[in-house]
């Protein structure tokens, strides 16, 4: 050890005996360590909770969805709508479990066999095709409406509007929309889209809020609402997600440097030309990824669609067997891909999960359906989140300025 024989530096200080460069025991340092430990514990606690929830769902839901033999996926789960599960014993002791549609088929195929014991378990059989389709349709309508209105608003606010108190109050209103409880959105959607929205019809209903005859035709513009249908649900969800979309679009637009707009204007472009050719194409990827995340969120909302679109039980898909009603308004007329389609009510995944979890008695029969539905829903949400991350990375590589 080469310790110099001369006096150590800082020899005249009070701690001359200790090396001043070494760590001191002090309250500040201890607090520092405690805080970092606490923060780490908090983070890992959240991780543990998430892991617990996900693992539980996977453990109980995966067996419902996956099978050990080909085709490795429980196709019945994905091709049938929810129905009751019938368990019964026949006189020779064999025990059967099948969904109610299969049950009726079996009964008509075996008319002489006597059934000894029979139980019907609601909502435990069949699959989730109806809810999946319904959620897809609702989300689709929501995206179309929300992106259109949200993008237009963001462009107006960012590019065209002037500063001022009025504009500030508009921005405040939009931000407040994000804090409105979802049940209030449900009631809002019920009140507006289901009961008061305008339809063009030749036979306006008595309860219509307002009826305006259209010149030169037999039709009326009747404010009688669209009833419980996917259109109303989609629009309600769109209004709910609007603040998220507007914020995402505005952020993307702000990220485009002003130089692009200036260069474009200096070449003699009109304002809209500059925006549509020099700004929007580069803002689009950012808008897309943020919108996908918002849409994933809204796909899981129950309250807004409870009143406006969803039914707990529906035995046909929206495009099947639309009733023919010659006198009804355009929205309600028949035809697979016309308005009649849009006016159908639907089942939806979040509402279905709510039904099987809270609205019916819990027993071992309902568990497969519950966990299976939740598992599928969780996988879909994760896929969408992964998609948005992938898109963000992909576009970030492509366009850099």
């Amino acid at each position, binding site marked *: 050890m080469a310790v110099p024989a001369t006096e150590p530096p800082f020899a005249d200080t009070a701690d001359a005996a200790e090396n001043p460069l070494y760590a001191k025991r002090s309250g500040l340092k201890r607090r520092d360590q405690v805080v970092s430990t606490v923060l780490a514990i908090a983070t890992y606690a959240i991780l543990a909770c998430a892991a617990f929830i996900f693992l539980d769902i996977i453990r109980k839901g995966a067996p419902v969805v996956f099978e050990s033999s080909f085709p490795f996926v429980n196709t019945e789960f994905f091709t049938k709508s929810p129905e009751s599960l019938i368990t019964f014993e026949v006189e020779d002791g064999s025990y059967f479990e099948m969904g109610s549609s299969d049950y009726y088929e079996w009964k008509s195929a075996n008319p002489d066999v006597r059934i000894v014991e029979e139980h019907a378990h609601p909502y435990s059989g069949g699959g989730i095709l109806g809810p999946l389709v319904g959620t897809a349709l609702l989300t689709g309508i929501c995206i179309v409406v929300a992106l259109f209105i949200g993008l237009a608003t963001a462009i107006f606010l960012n590019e065209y509007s*002037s*500063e001022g108190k009025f504009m500030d109050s508009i921005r405040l209103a939009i931000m407040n929309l994000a804090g409105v409880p979802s049940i209030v959105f449900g009631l809002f959607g019920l009140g507006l889209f289901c009961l008061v929205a305008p339809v063009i019809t030749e036979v306006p209903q008595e309860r219509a809020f307002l009826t305006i005859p259209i010149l030169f035709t037999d039709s009326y513009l009747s404010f009688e609402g669209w009833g419980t249908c996917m259109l109303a649900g989609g629009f309600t969800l769109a209004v709910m997600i609007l603040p998220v979309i507007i914020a995402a679009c505005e952020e993307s637009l702000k990220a485009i*440097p002003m*130089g*692009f707009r*200036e*260069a*474009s*204007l*200096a*070449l*003699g*472009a*009109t304002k809209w*030309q500059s925006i549509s*050719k*020099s700004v929007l194409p*580069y803002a689009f990827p950012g808008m897309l990824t943020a919108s996908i995340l918002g849409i994933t969120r809204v796909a899981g909302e129950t309250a807004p669609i409870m009143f406006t679109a969803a039914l707990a039980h529906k035995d046909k898909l929206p495009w099947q067997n639309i009733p023919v009603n010659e006198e009804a308004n355009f929205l309600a007329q028949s035809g697979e891909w016309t308005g009649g389609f849009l006016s159908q009510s639907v089942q939806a995944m979040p509402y279905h999960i709510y039904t099987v979890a809270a609205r019916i008695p819990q027993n071992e029969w309902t568990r497969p359906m519950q966990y299976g539905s939740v598992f599928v829903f969780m996988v879909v949400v994760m896929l969408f989140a992964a998609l948005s991350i992938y898109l963000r990375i992909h576009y970030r590589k492509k*366009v*850099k*300025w």
Partner: protein
Amino acid sequence: MSDQESEEILSPEHSSVTTSAQHPDTADIVIEVDDVNFSYVKGTEVLRDITMDIRKGEVTALIGPSGCGKSTLLRCINRMNDLIPTARITKGEIRILDTDIYDPKVDPIELRKHVGMVFQKYNPFPKSIYENVAFGLRIQGIKKKPILDEAVERSLKLAGLWEEVKDRLDSSGLGLSGGQQQRLCIARTVAVEPKIVLMDEPCSALDPISTTIIEELITQLKEEFTIVIVTHNMQQATRVSDKTAYFYLGELIEMDETIKIFNSPSRKKTEDYISGRFG
């Protein structure tokens, strides 16, 4: 001796536009700035009593310390200041082709097709080189490929970039070096064939070699265009410009042929700036 008196001694005439007897101006006047005041925010005038003429086929340099209003005047000429809601000309007129460009009948979009601008920070679009140069023509509705091809080649040649990029017109404009990107912006500006090209400190973000290339470019471009260039760099003004206008705190102190300004300025304020007494 006060500044005022020394001014008197240096220059008996106070007109801000003086011409040398040996080189009478014969070129047409393209831009007339007539006793103009300009303000960004009501109450504070950023430009005061500016009167000057820009002549065809010449390079006119606007010099002066930071914040003296030279960039502001430049942006008035193609009405880019319209983007700021509270900015306006509070007195006087700017005339191009004998038309007051702030006349309500004048469409700024049309004006900017005749008065192009190159910015300080080069800003090519994240598109291919070809699309960058063709942008100005496309927004006018020109779609035919032969016309666009010819215009792109002509503009890139004018900007001195053709030889370097003719094999990779479809590659991204952002893949070029800084000096090349600025030349791309120049090509983009001249593609729409304006009569006047305004340049706002085009070389301040570039290295010296790129600066030299662009200065040579400017000397060639003046055969086809009238150029007004704002520059911080006095030596650049001596290298490229025919006429120089010196601005200070929103006023035009002196404007004359470049040689005269830098060798024998008429105003003391000009001489102080040129000799580096302040900057």
